[in-house]
Every structure is written in C-alpha cells, then in structure tokens.
C-alpha cells in the first residue's frame, strides 16, 4: 500500500503551494479549531489542578499526630470559629473506632463532654472533677506500660513540656501505612539564634529532610534543605527561614556561615522562603521566622528520643480519613493501649483551620464549620470530589464547544477540497493522461487534506500553548497542558483531514480523464 508514499506527499504539497491564499486560510481555520480545543482543555484541567492544589494547600491532605491527648479540655468550641482540632475529632464517632469496643467509662466521658459544651462553669467543673482526668499526662499516678511512656522521665529533663508518647520509630512505622505520601518528624522549641553579635529569638523546628516536600510553595532563596546523610549523622546543619536570615545576616548570604544555638555551632546550608504571594514571610510566623535542623540532631544534642508531633501527607485527599484511622490503630497497637483506654496521642487534619483561614467563601466556611462536628472528615472530601467532578464537567463542556470549532475547521477543509476538485479538474485530467491511476489522484487529495489539517493542527498546538500561557500569565488563570492533550489535538486534526478529505478525493478520483481534459 503506497497510498502515502513520499512522492504523493510531495505532489500534494506542491499542489497546495500553488494556491497559497486558499491553503493558508484553510490552515487558519484548522489552527483556530485545534488551538481552541487545546486552550479549553488547558483551562479545564488547569482549573482541576488549581482546585486540587487549593485543597492540598489548605492542608486537606495533611494529617498531624501530636503527642498527648487534650480532648477533655476542649469540648465546647463549636460556636467559636477558631476550633481546637482535636475537639471536633473526638466528639463524633470516628469511623476507625469500633463502637462495640468502647467501654462505659469512655462513653460517659463523651456524654459529659457533650453536655458541658459551651458552659464555662461546667467546663471548670469537669476540669476539677477527678473522675474526668482522662488524660494520662494529667494523672501522675497513672501507669503506662508502653515503651514510649517509660521514656518520660528522660524527656522531662529536656523540659520540652509536652507528652512523651511519640518516637521516631512511630514515625518510621507510619511511613509504612498504605496511602501515606510523606512523613516528617517534628520537635519544636523556642531558641536564641546567635551569629556574631546578632541575636534573634525564634522558633526551632527539628524535622525530617522531607519537610520541603510537605510544605507547599516553599522555595530556597539560596542553598538547600539538609540532606539524608546529614540527618543520618545528626550533623549540626541549619536551614534558616527568610525572616531569620534577614534579621541575623541582613542582606548577606548566610549559606556557609555558622550560627549558634544552645552554645552549639551550626552551619547554615540554606535559606527558605515562599513562592506564594498570599502569605508573605513575617516576623512571628511559624514557617519563615524559624530555623530548621534535623530532628536527629535535636535528639543527639538534647539526649531525647521523643517527638512533639509527626506530620503526614496523604497521597490522595480522598484517603485522609482512612489513613487517620490506620495511623490511630497502628499507634494504639504500638503504644499497647488497651481497648478501654483513650489514645495517648491526637490525630488531626488541618482542614478545619484551613476552612476558617480562607480559600473558601466565608459563608460557606461558616456553614460548614458551624453546623456539624467532624464535617471535615467527610464533607470536605466530598466537597473536594464534587468540585473535581464539577471541573471535569466544565472541561468536557469547554472541550465540546471547542470541538465544534474543530468540526467547522473540518468542514472548511472539505469545502476547500471540493472547490479545489472542481477548479483543478483539468489538472486531474492531465495527471491521468500522463499515467496517474485513480487511486493516485485520490491519495493526492487525501494527502492534501491531511497536510492542511496537520499543518493547521501543529500551528494550532503552538497557538494553543501560547494562548494558555497568555491566559495564565496575564489573566492568572490556571492552565495545564499535558502531552496527551497535544497528541490528542494533532491526532484529531489528522483524523478530521482524512474524514473530510475522503469525499472530495473520491470525487476527484472518479472523474473521467477525457472529460476532465476537455474541462475549461
């Protein structure tokens, strides 16, 4: 089958070159069609990605396990907007807890918590009531028989002041939970950072090298985050938040310089700031008015084994609830907590805070936060899925509209080809006289149509890329162009060419040579 050999294409291209204006106008029609399809898909998928991004940025895939359990102290704040996360989690039926396993004492506690909601007096009562000292840390006489609790004494010498129930082996175990994307250990302290005669009181985060993968919109103004090797060897390396860098080093580049905390010298390996224009680094914030060192270094220097918290990201926002449940189960087993005992840790998502902070219209946020407790576990995910579905529908709609322009482009090609068959009847006769077979003529016309549509398609891809880039640069629309969308657009263009070129080509091939030679 030599339908599309090189000479056929050469003949077709020569023929097209002879009618430059017609050819270019037809190509423009095709270009617009393909560009429109591509731009629409770009806008649609961009919107999907943006929503997914916002959901993630709002912390919807973020789970934080905090050492200790403070639920008794905060069961009342549903009217209040700024909500202690654990409250919402604890006061409903978490799906990962088997109802049947709960003992009566726990049940009573829950009932009491619910009744006490909103009443300061009763909260005080509950606080003073010895029977309600459910938290193990609140009862010095309480016996803990899991290993981390036994380390409490050593930890308390460090004076970190939080429950000593989480360890880095817990974090390692959590890394094995299905659906978990990244896990970062967390130790937090306030420290004096000294460099020469400059001092700055700031926040110290002992963390894992994967933290930059968890924090969104982080960028390194200079240097890098500490490496796996440095973390393994518990080296004294430090990453400065941009606020600290500015306060301590001014405009100088701190990378390679030494700073001191706890009278220990740390080498600065990087400065971190944010790419987000929504959150500017400011003194007092937790991310950029802060310094980061490996948690292993904190453990080594302060002779610790515990963690303040463990930050987890879920690979998919839809799995947050399931992962929370798995992590809870895992830690209960690891900490050897009996069925009748409450957790000695707290698992929260940041969804609720994110809702309260922004990214969603205030009335929606209020409606969501204000009404049903524990909503963030179910409804936010559903909300995310609904938004996802909505944008997918939008993408389909946009692409559908754009496809119409592609169809118009195709009809344009067919029109020009039909016209060209009539116009070039004599040419067809000449070609037949010198030995062109009917199928040579057909192949030539199909090749012309395909050449038109593919040229238009490629030009359309370029135009679509430019349009998408322009939309995102000047109108700040979020656009995404995937390679598959590009291939799809060009493929559809070629298919349109073949489809709409076939009929005119058939007409051309069917012409009688003698008649067409006589045609004036």
């Amino acid at each position, binding site marked *: 089958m030599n339908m599309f050999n090189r000479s056929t294409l*050469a003949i077709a291209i020569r023929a097209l070159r002879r009618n430059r204006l017609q050819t270019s106008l037809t190509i423009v029609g095709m270009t617009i069609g393909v560009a429109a399809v591509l731009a629409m898909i770009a806008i649609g998928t961009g919107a999907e990605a943006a929503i997914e991004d916002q959901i993630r940025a709002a912390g919807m895939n973020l789970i934080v396990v905090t050492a200790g359990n403070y639920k008794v102290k905060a069961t009342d704040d549903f009217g209040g907007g700024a909500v202690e996360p654990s409250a919402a989690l604890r006061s409903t039926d978490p799906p990962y807890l088997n109802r049947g396993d709960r003992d009566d004492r726990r049940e009573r506690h829950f009932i009491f918590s619910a009744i006490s909601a909103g009443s300061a007096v009763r909260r005080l009562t509950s606080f003073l009531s010895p029977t309600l000292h459910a938290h193990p840390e609140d009862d010095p006489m309480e016996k803990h028989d899991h290993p981390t609790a036994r380390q409490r004494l050593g930890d308390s010498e460090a004076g970190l002041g939080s429950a000593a129930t989480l360890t880095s082996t817990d974090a390692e175990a959590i890394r094995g939970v299905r659906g978990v994307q990244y896990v970062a250990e967390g130790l937090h302290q306030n420290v004096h950072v000294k460099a020469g005669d400059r001092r700055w009181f700031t926040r110290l985060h002992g963390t894992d090298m994967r933290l930059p993968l968890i924090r969104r919109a982080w960028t390194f103004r200079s240097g890098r985050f500490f490496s796996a090797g440095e973390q393994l060897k518990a080296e004294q390396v430090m990453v400065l938040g941009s606020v600290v860098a500015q306060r301590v080093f001014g405009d100088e580049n701190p990378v390679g310089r030494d700073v001191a905390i706890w009278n220990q010298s740390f080498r600065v390996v990087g400065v971190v700031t944010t790419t987000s224009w929504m959150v500017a680094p400011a003194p007092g914030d937790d991310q950029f008015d802060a310094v980061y060192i490996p948690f292993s270094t904190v453990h080594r220097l302060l002779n610790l084994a515990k963690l303040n918290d463990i930050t987890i990201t879920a690979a998919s926002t839809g799995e947050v609830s399931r992962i929370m449940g798995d992590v809870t189960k895992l830690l209960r087993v690891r900490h050897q907590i009996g069925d009748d005992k409450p957790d000695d840790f707290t698992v929260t998502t940041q969804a609720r805070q994110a809702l309260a902070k922004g990214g969603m219209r205030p009335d929606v946020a209020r409606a969501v936060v204000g009404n049903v407790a524990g909503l963030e576990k179910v409804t936010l995910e559903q909300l995310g899925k609904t938004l996802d579905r909505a944008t997918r529908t939008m993408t389909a709609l946009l692409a559908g509209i754009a496809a119409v322009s592609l169809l118009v482009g195709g009809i344009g090609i067919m029109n020009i080809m039909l016209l060209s068959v009539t116009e070039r009847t004599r040419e067809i006769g000449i070609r037949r006289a*010198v030995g062109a077979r009917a199928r040579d003529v057909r192949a030539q016309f199909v090749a012309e149509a395909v050449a038109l549509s593919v040229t238009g398609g490629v030009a359309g891809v370029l135009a679509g890329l430019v349009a998408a880039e322009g939309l995102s640069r000047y109108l700040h629309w979020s656009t995404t162009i995937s390679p598959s969308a590009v291939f799809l657009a060009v493929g559809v263009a070629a298919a349109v060419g073949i489809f709409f070129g076939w009929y005119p080509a058939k007409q051309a091939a069917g012409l009688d040579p003698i008649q067409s030679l006589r045609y004036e």
Partner: protein
Amino acid sequence: MTTATALIAVRDVTKTYAMEGAPVHALRGVTLDIHAGEFVAVVGPSGSGKSTFMHILGCLDRPTAGRYLLDGRDVSALSDDELSAIRNRRIGFVFQGFNLLARTSALENVELPLLYAHDHRVSPAARRQRAMKALTAVGLENRAEHHPNQLSGGQQQRVAIARALLNDPAILLADEPTGNLDSRTSIEVMDIFQRLKEERGITIILITHEPQVAEYGSRIIRFKDGRVVADQPNASRRAAAEELAAVALGSAEET
C-alpha cells in the same frame, strides 16, 4: 501489412456514447494497423470521430466493441490501473491547449510522468536530471524554472513535448498540437516531430483538421462520420527542417 508486426492494430472498433437517450455513434467500425516508426496524420472534420479514435489509441477510453492490440496485446479490456500504466510507459500526449499545470515550473511539469512511474521508482534528484535532459532536448534548458504563463505558446508546447517524451514512450499522440500556434512555431513543432520519428523511431500519430499540417505526416488517414474514408502514404510530404532553413535564409536575405 501484417498484424503480427504492427505496433497498433485496430480491429472493427466501434464507440457509442449514450447521450440523453439517443446513442451517438462516434466510431462505426474502424480497422487499421500502424507500424512502429510511422508518422501518421489523422484528418477529418469535427465530429468525424478522430478525437474519439485518439482517446482509444491513447488508452484514455475503451472501445464499445472491437479489439485494440497494442504491441500485440489486447488493451480493450484492461483495468483502469493497467491503462494508466500503459499511458505512463508507452504513450506520450501533446494537446492543443498544451495542458501544462499552471503555477508550476516547466521542470516540474516535465517531471510529472515520473511521479506516476510506479514500476520503477526514481529518486527526486534523478527525476530532476531526466526532466532537465528532456527540456534541453527541446531547447528550453534555460526556461526550466519558468511557469507556463511566462512562456510563449511555442515554448509551452515544447515543454509539453518534453513531458510526453520523458518516459521514452513508443507512441506520441498529438491532438491538434498546432491549433493554438502561429505558422512559424507550428513548423518548429512539426520539425521536432519529424526529427523524433527519424532520429528516435518514435511512432507519431497527429490529429489535425488542417490539411497543410497533415502534409508533414508520412501517411494520412481521413475520418468521416466515424469511419476511415481514406488511408494512404503521403506523396507530397513537407519537410519542416527545410522550410525552417528557407525561412531563416529568407529573413537573412531581407536584412
């Protein structure tokens, strides 16, 4: 004349067109032989069937009845593709209206038959080379990149002849080749034909309605009402080369 050696053998060929109910008999039984190397002039008034005859000889059309043997092979029942291959390899056409592709250089026009030579593929470079050679043979090597509308009628007809000869056909079919040319360029074209016959032994079949043009042929066949009414050797054959020399001489004397 024996059929066995004839390049073209036509036996009782008829052609009938169905035109709005009433059938038109374009050919009513034509029988003749044409031998390799002949220069045959076919004359007759319009409607005599000479054009239809040429189309059948040129494998552009099939006879309604009768047999047409080309090289001893019956081509009346060949498929369209097979007829195309014969047109490509064995027959060259020259038309009254030149039939060059517009907005296409002379060279590309000449190349055209090679694009459809499916049994032997030629590289683009070789194609250009052969086309250039054919253009040189008709004296237009310095017009290769010109488009038809930049060429005179005589030059266009010579491009058409170069195209017709590109695949070294056995037969050159010329349908009123001088119809659009002045007398001087007509003689030039006839000179080319006569030289092709003499030097390359190409069989030339010239269709014309002008008796004085037919005089260049070595055999004249007359058509009337779809039948051959006369078929004889041309006793008073004109020699185009001599006429051209005389014209050149005459103009030289004038100056």
